[in-house]
């Protein structure tokens, strides 16, 4: 290993750490001699056990944020940690709503560049990052050329999280200090939307709809098919942009990365922006009326047909099976 120290920002969620955070810890411990983690939110002690189990020896805990969005206080705390403990060679951050805020704030505070949309990390006498481009048909490999720490934002499911069975990380408090007016964004109320069935990123089956559905109401076909297959419903950017379904359903470069056992793309032509979010699926099924739709080039099983005929028939067939 040529890398001394890597810090990983590990993101709290419902009292635990997000899966992407654990994926990053798993990769970091194979790349660097020492892995430390940074978290926030007030459950530091239990996170220290979890972060330790996945390879972190120290957990820097920013603590409760009292409603502040994490970006500013967490970046400010990391800046202070660097002043106190020295800079790591790289700081790995999960691609998420809050992770990207932390990365942007930290980059500007430290005046260090940031590399995002990373799906691979290798050690070639220094850290090399891998980025899928053009729908994942090519991989750009990049590296930092200046003084560290390099800030790296990594997409979900780039690595598989595996426990190292190592003991709890040592918990160290990470003070925020004064952040001034920049820290003024405050959460006043949180709304949890009810969800039936598995999360999009964790579902074994994902059924996604695109522009080929023709109108917003037809998305119900996608939801029903997903439900019958005990899966989750996804969407292309086109129908999210059109306001048919919320952004949280979006699969692709600007949305979520999914790697289910089977991905069923319905009325999705296969724009490069979509492909990069689902081409890691184990199997891909595509239904599209255009026989030349790019989605068929990566589909293991394709039906050239009208989603308005095929989906109702599929729903009936699945119901008939009970």
């Amino acid at each position, binding site marked *: 290993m040529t890398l001394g120290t890597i810090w990983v920002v590990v993101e709290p969620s419902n009292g635990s750490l997000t899966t992407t955070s654990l994926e990053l810890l798993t990769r970091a411990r194979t790349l660097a001699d020492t892995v430390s983690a940074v978290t926030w939110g007030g459950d530091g002690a239990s996170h220290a056990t979890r972060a330790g189990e996945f390879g972190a020896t120290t957990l820097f805990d920013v603590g409760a944020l009292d409603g502040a969005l994490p970006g500013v206080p967490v970046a400010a705390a990391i800046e202070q940690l660097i002043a106190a403990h020295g800079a790591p060679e790289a700081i790995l951050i999960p691609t998420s709503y809050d992770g990207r805020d932390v990365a942007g*704030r930290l980059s500007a505070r430290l005046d260090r560049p*940031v590399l995002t949309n990373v799906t691979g990390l290798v050690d070639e006498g220094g850290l090399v990052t891998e980025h899928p481009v053009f729908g994942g*048909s090519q991989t750009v490999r990049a590296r*930092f050329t200046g003084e560290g720490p390099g800030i790296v934002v990594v997409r979900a499911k780039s690595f598989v999280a595996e426990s190292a069975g190592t003991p709890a990380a040592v918990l160290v408090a990470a003070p925020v200090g004064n952040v001034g007016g920049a820290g003024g964004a405050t959460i006043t109320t949180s709304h949890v939307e009810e969800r039936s069935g598995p999360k999009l990123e964790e579902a074994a089956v994902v059924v996604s709809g695109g522009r080929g559905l023709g109108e917003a109401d037809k998305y119900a076909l996608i939801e029903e098919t997903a439900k019958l297959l005990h899966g989750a419903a996804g969407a292309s950017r086109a129908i999210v942009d059109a306001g048919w379904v919320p952004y949280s359903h979006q699969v692709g470069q600007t949305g979520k990365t999914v790697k289910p056992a089977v991905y069923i793309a319905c009325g999705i032509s296969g724009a490069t922006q979509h492909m990069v979010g689902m081409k890691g699926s184990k199997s891909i099924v595509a239904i599209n009326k255009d026989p030349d739709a790019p989605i068929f080039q990566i589909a293991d099983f394709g039906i050239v*047909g009208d989603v308005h005929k095929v989906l109702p*028939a599929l729903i009936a067939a699945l119901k008939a099976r009970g």
Partner: protein
Amino acid sequence: MNIVVCVKQIPDPAAPQSLDSSHNLNRLGKLILDEADTYGVEMGLQLVDTFGSGDVTVVSMGSAADVAGLRNALAMGAAKAIIVSDDSLRGTDALGTAKVLAAVIRRINPDLVLCATESSDGYTGTTPVQVAELLGLPSITFAKSVTVDGSSVKVERQTESGFDEVSAPLPALVTVTAGVVEPRYASFKGIMAAKSKPLEVLSIADLGLASETGPTGARQEITDVVAAEARTAGEKYVDEGDGAEKIVAFLESIKVL
């Protein structure tokens, strides 16, 4: 309520894309206003309308050889466009871009800055928050609803499990997701009016930022570009009323059913 909307002119995403010999995205063809930015422009126009006074300025960085995208934003109703265009900006990274945009926004001193969550060509997704940090402003990302009063902005922010209501004192920066508003089409009157609206082109020297931009300022390099592991097309059938049946059989074969 004076609002700056950061926008980007990008190669048409529907056209074939390629990298040049320096591994930069080829930007030689026609440029269009990034569709992701039309939501911010529309949001800005609606907020100014609701507030009753002020205007929208669009701020951009990139080649000014083609400004059709900026004219489009002006035709939608923005009052003014400013683009920083300079050959030396080629190869500028997200932080360098943020420095350029922040330098322009500082001159305007708006109440609110709106951006897309990320561009549709580079997808870095950090530039807006970097701009906010450089300007010392609070930021709220991934807005699915935005309202303002004279002193604060209230946002419904997308989260993994639903959404949060988040507020920040003005001035502030907000990034909007697609679908937050329905962007208007420019009217004929708007298109005609846009031709005489101010469109200012600034150079890097105007902003005094030379060493922060370009490949040197980026402090990163692409080492190589390699072909990714390709997926191959499998079976394909034309639906003759048996498409659903065939899908069920395939799902059985991979043990999903």
